[in-house]
């Protein structure tokens, strides 16, 4: 296959994607046409966004998925250590449920933020939503980082290079950060 063949195949796939984009998106005719035209040459870069016209507001954000993956890693890493009885699958499930509640709240905030308005009251409400979102998103990112650090600490604990107390401190911090969000997320 030479460069010309490659361009033809790329264009054909792009044309097919453009048809899908034009048919599936729900904006004005001109916007749909523009989106479809951009899709023809740029389908690998644009189609993933054009075909997902509504953001996945009802699904967990990627950071929540990362935390749940890290929780599984942490439980595995704790096996055979003195913290095996603390970092159980049941405890991980409980933490995972808390994370999902925070993620659901984030999605709800995003849904509210998508409304448009230009009055001062709208601006104030949007600023409050943005602050609330930042608080929840920051907390999730910090929890992900702490879980990452916890995995390393468990490795060091297994090697006898770190006392169990130090690892327990990290676990306590993760729990306290999630608990701090819990009253808000349960409201």
């Amino acid at each position, binding site marked *: 296959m030479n*460069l010309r063949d490659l361009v033809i195949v790329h264009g054909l796939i792009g044309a097919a994607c453009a048809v899908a984009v034009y048919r599936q*998106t729900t*904006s004005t005719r001109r*916007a*749909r046409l*523009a*989106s479809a035209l*951009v899709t023809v040459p*740029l389908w*690998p*870069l*644009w189609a*993933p*966004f*054009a075909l*997902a*016209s509504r*953001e*996945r507001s009802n699904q967990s*954000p*990627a*950071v929540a*998925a*990362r935390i749940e*993956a*890290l929780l599984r*890693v942490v439980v595995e890493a704790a096996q055979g250590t003195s913290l095996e009885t603390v970092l159980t699958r049941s405890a991980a499930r409980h933490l995972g449920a808390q994370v999902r509640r925070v993620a659901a709240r*984030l999605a709800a905030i*995003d849904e509210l933020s998508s409304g448009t308005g230009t009055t001062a009251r709208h601006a104030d409400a949007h600023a409050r939503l943005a602050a609330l979102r930042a608080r929840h*998103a920051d907390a999730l*990112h910090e929890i*992900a*980082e702490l879980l*990452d*650090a916890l*995995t*390393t600490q468990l490795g060091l604990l297994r090697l006898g290079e770190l006392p169990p107390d130090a690892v327990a401190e990290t676990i306590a911090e993760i729990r306290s950060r999630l608990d701090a969000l819990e009253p808000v997320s349960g409201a």
Partner: protein
Amino acid sequence: MIGFDASLLGALLREPGEVSRRCVDERDLAPLAATSLGTIACGCAVFGAVVGCFRGGTQIPFAALKMPVARLAALAICGPAFHALAAVFGRPWSLRTVVALGLAAGARASLVLLALAPVLWLVIDRNGRYDAVKVCAALAYAFAGLAALWLVLRALGRGSGSTITAAGFVAVFLAVGGQTAWILRPYIGEPSDAVVPLFVSRQEGGVADALARSARAVVGVSERR
């Protein structure tokens, strides 16, 4: 659906952490992707036009067209590889997150190229030699690459596997981006060519070899053939 959001340009330059977090959270990605695509197209086109100024004439629009094509083609090819690398090293991001991150990083790099275009123009205007212009353009690309890398590093965070993932991204993009740009050359046009071709068809060795030759020529080391 498509909307160029100028306010995102400031965020790309001044708040790379916030932009990277937006990508990782999959929050409002369509406007970010659209703005990034537009920024890459415009930034690279302007830089390409400046590079083409060395020869002038048709080389200006040719280079202005080929630079964004090279950048966008490299990003399109690298997307799946970035997705796999991130997943392997503990970041199971969606393809949309990875593509958005690539586009945002590419847009940041394009803004840096746009900022450096006047410097390169000055070098050309002061009758800079062919090899000097080539090395200056490569240096501008290196600065732009560092700006893009900073955004990617913010997305990767400081957790385990971030360094190796970043190194993997850089290695893949350098190989793919370098080769894509190499296929679409010339951008400047060799002084020895009476007419600069749209594409080079002769065998000339690799990208690294050509850059090393130009660097040697700039510092005055004669070439052994």
